[in-house]
């Protein structure tokens, strides 16, 4: 089974990320990649670089910022493959983001999946994490998104993605080792649950916005687009 790990941290995360965190990250990657558990992952730009897209009355509304203002900001992701939720939580506990912020564990649902991506991205393209957000606590049916996913994958602007299991069944890890807590539920606001994600590869933000606006949830909820943080970029 595949699981999405959503890494989050406070705005000062970069400055707080110390040698211990780096060492822990390297160890985690060695283990996860070596054992075939790691599928994909990487750092994401934080809230200041995110953009939220909605469609209301047929008009595309673009706003600066994340889908919700939260104390902790999304900073990265991993998709892992392992036996069950308990194992996934185990991997989340060992990730340095667990004590540098939090790690939310979500099961991939609805037939979506992730796979290894070509590195680097195609010339002149930028990768974005797209989060699909419902505007109420009930998660939305995955049905209508299939057509969108097929079209965007066909165009080459969608690399992979998936609906997610219910936010209520998420597990969020905070803290280090024995002192870590694992709570039921997602890290973000309960009335605006993340119900799906997609990784996009686009020429620029305008294209990413156009792709996001076409998603059915843009009309019913919100879609957030945030750029990958490229290796070597500050």
């Amino acid at each position: 089974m595949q699981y999405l790990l959503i890494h989050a941290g406070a705005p000062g995360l970069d400055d707080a990320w110390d040698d211990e965190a780096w060492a822990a990250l390297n160890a985690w990657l060695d283990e996860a990649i070596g054992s075939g558990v790691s599928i994909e992952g990487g750092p994401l730009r934080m809230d200041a670089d995110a953009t939220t897209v909605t469609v209301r009355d047929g008009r595309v509304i673009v706003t600066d910022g994340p889908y919700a203002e939260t104390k902790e900001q999304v900073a990265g992701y991993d998709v892992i493959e392992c036996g069950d939720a308990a194992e996934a939580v185990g991997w989340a506990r060992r990730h340095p983001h667990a004590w540098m912020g939090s790690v939310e564990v979500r099961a991939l649902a609805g037939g979506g999946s992730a796979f290894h991506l070509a590195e680097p991205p195609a010339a002149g393209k930028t990768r974005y994490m797209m989060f699909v957000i419902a505007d109420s606590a009930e998660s939305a049916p995955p049905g209508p998104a299939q057509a969108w996913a097929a079209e965007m994958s066909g165009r080459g602007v969608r690399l992979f993605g998936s609906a997610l299991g219910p936010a209520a069944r998420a597990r969020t890890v905070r803290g280090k080792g024995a002192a870590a807590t694992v709570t039921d539920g997602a890290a973000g606001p309960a009335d605006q649950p993340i119900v799906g994600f997609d990784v996009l590869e686009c020429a620029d933000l305008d294209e990413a916005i156009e792709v996001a606006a076409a998603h059915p949830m843009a009309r019913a909820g919100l879609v957030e687009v945030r750029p990958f943080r490229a290796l070597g970029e500050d």
Partner: protein
Amino acid sequence: MAGIFRQEWGRITAALIHQTGDWDLAEECAQDAFAQALRRWPGDGVPDRPGAWLMTVARRRALDRLRRGRTYQAKLEELAVTAAREQDPNAVAAPDQDADAGDGGVPDERLRLIFTCCHPALALEARVALTLRTLTGLSTAEIARAFLVPEATMAKRLVRAKQKIAHARIPYRVPPASALPERVPGVLAVLYLVFNEGYAASGGDDVIRRDLCDQAITLTRVLTELLPAEPEAQGLLALMLFHRARQAARVDARGDLVTLEDQDRTRWDQAEAELARRHLATALAARRPGQYQLQAAIAGCHAAARTADATDWPRIARLYRHLAELTGSPVVELNRAVAVSMADGPAAGLALLTRLEAGGALAGYYLLPATRADLLRRLGRDGEAADAYQEAAALAATGPERRFLEARLAQITGSATNGG
């Protein structure tokens, strides 16, 4: 020389950003070129084509710095990609190469720059700051003073905006024609915000604020030249010119606000009003009405009245009704209530105002109780008017506004005492 500086700054930064993709480099090289001009021109004389001189110096400087930097090769690659992407058949046609002899043979890139600075993925305050910094040459300190924030805050705002453009890959381009209808309003909103920032507090409070009005008008004029098919741009320009035409009469010797009905109309700049009228006529000829054209038409009604009594209030009330339908804005509804009170009497206006207040949309906005106060005063209900003036004065944000309301309050309570 300050005039040349203002005129050429935006043109040069826009060209350099386009050519190098580096916003900071563009600003610095423009700065260097102007510094050189300040050193050389007093002795050598101002060149025949100062714009071309400045552009050439700035470009040479940019090329020089790029060559020295380790990122030269990377930039070349980036520029190659940008150039390839520019073969987009949907792109708006680039302005004429030789449209302006003063530009050093470089096409006017300011349209790209304006649209990029005003991209909806940037926060509104970031759009305003970036537009002013890159297109007008106002310093960070000057922009900070104009918006009443510390310089460090404004500097951070600018850095963040440029970072977002880079990190999120906001494209540096004029949107394709199909996207213009949704993107042009955003640009106009930024320009109007800049204008209002200057206009609302003008009247001797700060020289910078007057400069904001001038800058907004200049930029809007540039926009009308670069986007001749957009009537709302012409409409906005007309609106700003009508407002500025009244500037000299708006504030009295003590720095207090003078209402429209009390203004000395001989101090209105008729030439500017006439220019505004011509721009409005051009806009209306396109038969695509919009909010700025409507607002300009209203301002034009005022400008056309030789005395306050001669104002065509029924026409203004009708225009406000169209505007309210178009925008759904409660502030417009408020203005409409005032116009109706002038056309049909204060009771009619008060009825509209009461409906508006019931909706709750403008709670905390001082002009709501101020308007109520005025209508009550005109109806002879002085006691209620006094309460409303007090309420309004407490909410008023600036000195001139508060003083005006307190003066009205004094008049009312004075007459209440006399009559009582």
